[in-house]
């Protein structure tokens, strides 16, 4: 279960507003939102427990419970609503304000304007009703819980803080499209501060958006060193067909290499592992190294050998069958004559 907390205090211009916001205390608290219900079939999928990830046939309606919490010192009047979102350049971005899209028009949150007491929680119900003529494909949206500061008389800056639950809803007849991705190359880099990094180029080859995470392990380094596992940076969301970098930051104390790098990335239940040999440059970016799936060469030779053996056996079988046919009499009348010949005294 994931609780998103937003605690932002913005000094927005006038000296009086700055003083009053800071006087609220260091731990001003915030508002949070989390998903309460997830489908039983997706219980092993970590993404489905945090976001609403589903495949729906046209004409179906689903309901999910969410919970909004308030850890501030005063009651908050929250607005709950659904709005559009998109995946751009490897980031899941909620659209501004109440921008609608098809998915957000199918989605209702009830109650829409709960008053959450200080330190309290309220449960709301999200209903997504897909119409029977819905176009197939995956759509993205957000269920927002929004708190708005009171507008000052005469103007000033209104601060809106909102936290949301992502929607990844795929629509279409039958089963869900399969998710799949490939890790095309690994690039070793060194940042301007001297920190080594490995950037994996990941290509989404499946039919669902992916939220990437994973680890990198180094082995076979200078002096037989191994290092890791190092976690990949979170927050990269790959749209269908997209290719984006996923970076892994490493420790400055690591020697430059060469290293055998093995990277394992996953999104939900889809996992891929690949390897490459990398060396960290002194500065800047090294050449990208194409990855291989890690199958040793001898396995390929064994596979080829089995295929050749099967071909040889098939050819042998056909040849032997042809020879046997050659020895047998081709005229069906002949066996009778041979029998008569044998019976003649």
């Amino acid at each position, binding site marked *: 279960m994931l609780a998103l907390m*937003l605690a932002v205090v*913005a000094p927005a211009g006038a000296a009086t507003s700055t003083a009053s916001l800071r006087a609220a205390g260091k731990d001003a608290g915030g508002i949070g939102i989390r998903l309460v219900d997830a489908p039983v079939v997706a219980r092993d999928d970590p993404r489905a427990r945090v976001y609403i990830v589903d495949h729906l046939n046209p004409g179906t309606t689903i309901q999910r419970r969410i919970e909004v919490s308030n850890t501030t010192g005063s009651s908050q009047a929250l607005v709950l609503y659904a709005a559009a979102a998109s995946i751009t350049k490897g980031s899941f971005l909620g659209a*501004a304000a109440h921008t609608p899209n098809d998915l957000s028009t199918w989605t209702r949150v009830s109650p829409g304007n709960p008053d959450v007491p200080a330190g309290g929680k309220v449960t709301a119900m999200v209903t997504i009703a897909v119409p029977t003529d819905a176009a197939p494909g995956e759509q993205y949206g957000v269920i927002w819980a929004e708190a708005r500061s009171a507008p000052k008389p005469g*103007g000033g*800056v209104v*601060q809106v803080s909102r*936290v949301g639950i992502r929607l990844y809803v795929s629509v279409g007849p039958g089963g869900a499209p399969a998710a799949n991705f490939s890790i095309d190359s690994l690039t070793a880099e060194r940042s301007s501060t001297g920190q080594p990094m490995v950037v994996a180029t990941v290509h989404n080859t499946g039919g669902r958006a992916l939220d990437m995470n994973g680890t990198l392990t180094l082995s076979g380094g200078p002096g037989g060193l191994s290092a890791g596992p190092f976690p990949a*940076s*979170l*927050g990269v969301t790959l749209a269908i067909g997209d290719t984006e970098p996923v970076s892994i930051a490493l420790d400055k104390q690591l020697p430059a290499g060469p290293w055998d790098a093995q990277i394992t990335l996953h999104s939900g239940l889809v996992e891929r592992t690949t390897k490459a040999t990398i060396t960290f440059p002194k500065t800047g970016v090294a050449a990208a190294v194409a990855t291989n799936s890690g199958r040793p060469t001898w396995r390929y030779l064994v596979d080829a050998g089995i295929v050749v053996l099967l071909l040889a056996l098939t050819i042998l079988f056909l040849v032997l069958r042809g020879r046997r046919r050659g020895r047998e009499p081709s005229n069906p009348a002949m066996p009778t004559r041979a029998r008569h010949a044998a019976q003649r005294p």
Partner: protein
Amino acid sequence: MASVISTAFTPAAGPAIPAGAVSYTAGIITKVGTATYTANDPGNLTGVVAAVTETGITGDNSATWNPTITVAVPGGKAAGVYSATITHSVV
């Protein structure tokens, strides 16, 4: 991810200051946990843009910051009270 957007600063009467003149600096980010937070500090809040990006998140993490909003007021603007709405989103 944490993103921010601003509307234009509109006065009671007269032309508004566009949201492109509004820039955002996160300042010092205090964190709990092992993640690394980088302030994006966008110089233009017209569209939804990342405020602070996170890397290396494992386990429970949280971050707090007091951002500073800077408005570059173009010359020739009338005196008065300008209103805007600044929205922070975490999704």
